[in-house]
């Protein structure tokens, strides 16, 4: 009874700030300007399939790059001396405390046609290279901004892998490759799925990064939604419908991932 009473504020909170808004998004997605029921919003999302596909594609690339960078890094981090681990974790998190916009803006000045990087290359008579307003720049922005979200869950699952478990594998005849494939990798699956979730979801719906680094030609689904609410294309009903479709897609991705996670029989995933 006591726990029930204690959970009441959270239940109310959940209802007001999660259930109701979700219901409202769904409601707006299925009405037209006049307030009549319609399927047109949802069905017209189909015309934005290229944007949707681009969003998922770029977010997926960024997620894979994050994983490739973060996995070895997290492993090394987790095997370090405890004191050093703290320093390095601090360094990983430090950029996160700087404003997101500022960080992305900084990349603009670096990548611009007259930016620092091109000016550096110019010293050697190279360039200028077309770096800003490309898909590569968008992916770079995603990786840069979301990398810590991959490192942290990987690191926190890897520090829990007991060194003796690794030694036990070596003792039983496992070389470095087998230690990795038979012990470290299976034990870090929950960290991998959590990391993927935490990078992919914000990356697929970002609009700041694509706008600042991708220019006009690389609109992502986030930009599209933003346009429907705050932009020239003002159409909240369509915006709600795109959001809804995006949400369903993400849910689908996540449930596939969790399936994979559950197969490993490990707890600790985020969703």
């Amino acid at each position, binding site marked *: 009874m006591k726990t029930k009473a204690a959970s009441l504020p959270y239940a109310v909170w959940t209802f007001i700030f999660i259930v109701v808004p979700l219901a409202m998004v769904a409601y707006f997605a299925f009405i037209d300007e006049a307030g009549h029921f319609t399927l047109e919003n949802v069905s017209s999302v189909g015309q934005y399939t290229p944007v949707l596909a681009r969003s998922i594609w770029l977010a997926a690339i960024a997620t894979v790059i994050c994983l490739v960078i973060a996995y070895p890094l997290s492993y090394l981090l987790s095997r370090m001396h405890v004191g050093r681990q703290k320093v390095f974790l601090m360094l990983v998190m430090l950029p996160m405390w700087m404003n997101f916009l500022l960080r992305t803006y900084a990349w603009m000045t670096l990548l611009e046609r007259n930016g620092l990087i091109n000016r550096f290359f110019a010293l050697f008579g190279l360039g200028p290279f077309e770096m800003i307003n490309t898909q590569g720049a968008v992916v770079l922005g995603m990786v840069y901004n979301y990398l810590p979200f991959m490192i942290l869950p990987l690191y926190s699952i890897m520090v829990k892998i007991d060194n003796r*478990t690794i*030694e036990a594998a070596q*003792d039983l*005849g*496992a*070389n470095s490759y087998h230690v990795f494939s038979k012990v470290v990798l299976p*034990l870090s699956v929950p960290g991998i799925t959590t990391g993927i979730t935490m990078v992919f979801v914000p990356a697929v719906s970002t609009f700041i990064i694509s706008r600042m680094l991708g220019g006009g030609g690389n609109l992502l689904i986030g930009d599209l939604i933003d346009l429907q609410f705050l932009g020239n294309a003002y159409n909240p009903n369509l915006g709600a419908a795109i959001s809804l479709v995006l949400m369903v897609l993400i849910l689908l991705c996540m449930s596939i991932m969790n399936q994979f996670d559950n197969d490993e029989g490990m707890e600790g995933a985020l969703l």
Partner: protein
Amino acid sequence: MGENCIVSLKDIVVDFDGEVVLDGINLDIHDKEFVTLLGPSGCGKTTTLRIIGGFVEPASGDVFFDGKRINEMPPYKRPLNTVFQRYALFPHLNVFENIAFGLRLQKVPEKEVAQRVAEMLELVNLKGFDKRGVNQLSGGQQQRVAIARALVNHPRLLLLDEPLGALDLKLRKGMQIELKRIQQSLDITFVYVTHDQEEALTMSDTVVVMKDGHIQQIGTPQDIYNEPKNAFVADFIGESNILDGVMHKDFVVEFAGRKFDCVDKGFEKMENVDVVIRPEDIKVVPAIAGQLSGRVESVIFKGVHYEMVVESAGFSWIIHSTQSQEPGSSIGMNIDPFDIHIMHKMEEER
């Protein structure tokens, strides 16, 4: 290197960040022997085991296996297996897969894997547990899986690092007997690390007593108990009364304010020595009939015997006796010459 030596350590020195952990260890381990490394925590016994396992490389000195130097051989190539402290089972694998781990790496055919794992489950009394997750097992069961996982590879040498440390007393006793049975039935060498002197005496053929990175004594359990080489060994192996004494000449020692006959010789004239007397070797007699007399300070019932503390000649004696005495009463104490153990004073290390 002696006859039929399976492992030899020669002048092993190990230091961690400048702190010397092992200081010149020389040890021969014979084939099919049950050897126990015994000592208080921090004495270097686990490090010695890890040297043999290949997890620690000595700063100097050599490790031999079957007469071959194996200093640089990585753990996974060494023909031995280890039962780790707190088991270190693979949490993502069930009992069967944990035990089969080593066999799978050797690419043993599936049929043989199943057969050998089943044999092991039988050996450690875990039949029918093969599909369980290891986290569902009790400490004692996890222990058995760890032993089976190591033994399934048919190693000639098994290293055990305080394997019973996390079990309760009763389970521990049972597992001690079990381990000894397994060692004898498989006819292989065990090197066992513990800080529990009783465990060491119960199971071992040879006990190696260690302290501060040095070996203090190597011997059979009987030797170690009855003929401890110095006061540290005497004190660590069972309770002891350790007194300062002076060796007057061969067979005559003075301590507790009087001279005693003893069976030791070969000391310097008037050498300062440690005198060690086991609590159960002191006979309680009427006050006037004793070589020494004292006052009973306390009596504790210990089950098989009473433990008494007796004040005499400025020393608190511990006496084990099946007969209780009234606290505060005066008693006499007799000690037979062969129960008086004389030892050179330990040199202060470094």
